[in-house]
């Protein structure tokens, strides 16, 4: 069972980073490849993780159940599966510059001998907004996984350090493999939409496995830490 929990955080970590790589590919065609785009998306994922960690920890202390962890993963997978359905609409909606003066209306270069230079629009808030709408919820849900799992995983107060260490280790190794696997192979093999769909299916599958394990009577529940 403990191995199963380590695998859960491992796969959730891999999926999270795979989604982050996919988010770059999804947003670049509309918002460009500026460092603003990369910075915004990384912040969105970290923000989701932070909020998710707080919620996940609280939820876990209300009575940790394996099936609830499974339900969170099914929800994260479901949101990810639905993402391609509305991503275009969100990106179009958040795209900056609708209504702003368009170059065709900016007049000609004029007769002056000063070079006419038009400066770029401010992309920061639009990118941050689009990233939050699209990826904030999946990142938040995945952020709950590690603290929630910690409550299931750690059986004695004296083992908290070891337990948390193992979980973070497994989660981070998963994140590395998710990042490299996506960057080196998956983007080229399946493209962005299938990448999102695969991650969604993986998370739904993982959640269902945990729920079934709970029903079959797996007993990860620790003795109350007193």
């Amino acid at each position: 069972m403990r191995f199963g929990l380590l695998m859960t955080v491992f796969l959730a970590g891999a999926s999270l980073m795979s989604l982050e790589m996919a988010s770059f590919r999804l947003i670049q065609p509309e918002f460009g490849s500026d460092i603003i785009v990369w910075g915004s998306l990384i912040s969105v994922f970290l923000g989701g993780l932070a909020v998710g960690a707080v919620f996940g920890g609280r939820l876990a202390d209300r009575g940790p159940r394996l099936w609830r962890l499974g339900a969170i993963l099914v929800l994260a997978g479901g949101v990810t599966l639905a993402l391609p359905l509305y991503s275009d609409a969100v990106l179009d909606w958040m795209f900056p510059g609708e209504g702003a003066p368009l170059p065709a209306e900016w007049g000609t270069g004029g007769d002056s001998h000063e070079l006419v230079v038009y400066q770029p629009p401010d992309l920061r808030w639009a990118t941050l907004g689009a990233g939050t709408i699209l990826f904030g919820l999946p990142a938040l849900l995945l952020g709950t996984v590690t603290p929630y799992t910690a409550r299931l995983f750690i059986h004695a107060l004296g083992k908290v350090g070891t337990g948390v260490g193992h979980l973070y280790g497994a989660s981070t190794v998963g994140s590395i493999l998710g990042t490299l696997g996506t960057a080196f192979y998956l983007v080229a093999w399946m493209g962005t939409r299938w990448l999102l769909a695969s991650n969604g299916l993986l998370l739904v599958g993982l959640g269902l496995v945990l729920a079934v394990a709970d029903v079959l009577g797996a007993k990860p529940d620790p003795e109350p830490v007193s």
Partner: protein
Amino acid sequence: MKRTVVFIVVAAGLMLGGVAVWVGAQAVTESEKVRYDRESRYYRVRVVDYLDEGRRCLHFSRSRGIQSSMILADPTQLDLRYSRTMMAALALHPAPKDVLLVGLGGASIPRFMNRHWPEIRLDVVEIDADVVTVCRHWFELKGAPGLRVIVMDGRMYLKRSRKAYDVILLDAYATDRIPFHMTTLEFVQLARSRLKAGGILVSNLWEPTANRFYRAELKTFQTAFPQTYRFEAGTSGNIVVFSALDPNPTTKAAWVARAKALAGDRDLKFDLPQLVADEYEVLTGRRINAEPLTDDMAPVDTLRREHPKHFETAGTGG
């Protein structure tokens, strides 16, 4: 004692080596003068004068890969081979009035066009504001009636602007850095939608190894346009693809004749009609064993690394 001798010999050797490297570096700097070397938001921008050759070059990294080259004694001459080939677009279109250039580089095309056809209105989209500044200071980019520079991502500009052009020149691929969102069918179709009737889209590719990306990119242009042509810019390794909205093919003779008319009695410093005659090659209808790139599936870096063993050039049919 022995150790001391060994130490002294090694130390002396290192010092001599260091001096040799320093002298070598001095020798290099005598023929090369670095005018500008700074990190911008996107690149490391370097401007280097090669005094022996009388050239000023723009580099986007430490490498010697040249983004642009200007002959100091004759700045309006087009120095790089592919930029001359791209100018054939102005002859493929019967009467270009509005031209868009995506990717400023060292401003060689704006200098050249302003010198010879100042009546053609030119918009330039460049993502990096520092490149614009560098061009003003080091590459003689000056204000002119009808010249506008827009600091923006090329695809974002095309989406925002509703202005239509006769010719769109794409020169936004650095050799080691190709923005995938400007390679896809969606992008090419967006550019096509910003062309007036009879408009031309021209793209510069630098793919000397004829890899899978190159093939997929040719297929992408071929899919989006009724007529396509592929010019090999001499031995430079550059390929220039011309995509035309006009459903009727343009023959070599017609294109050469228009190039003659376009050049007129201007001293372009190269033979444009001859260039068209030498490099003219029809791409329309030829078999390309590849799928077009899409926003969803454009693994540009992966494809560029892959060189199929049995490579077919752009097809064997005619």
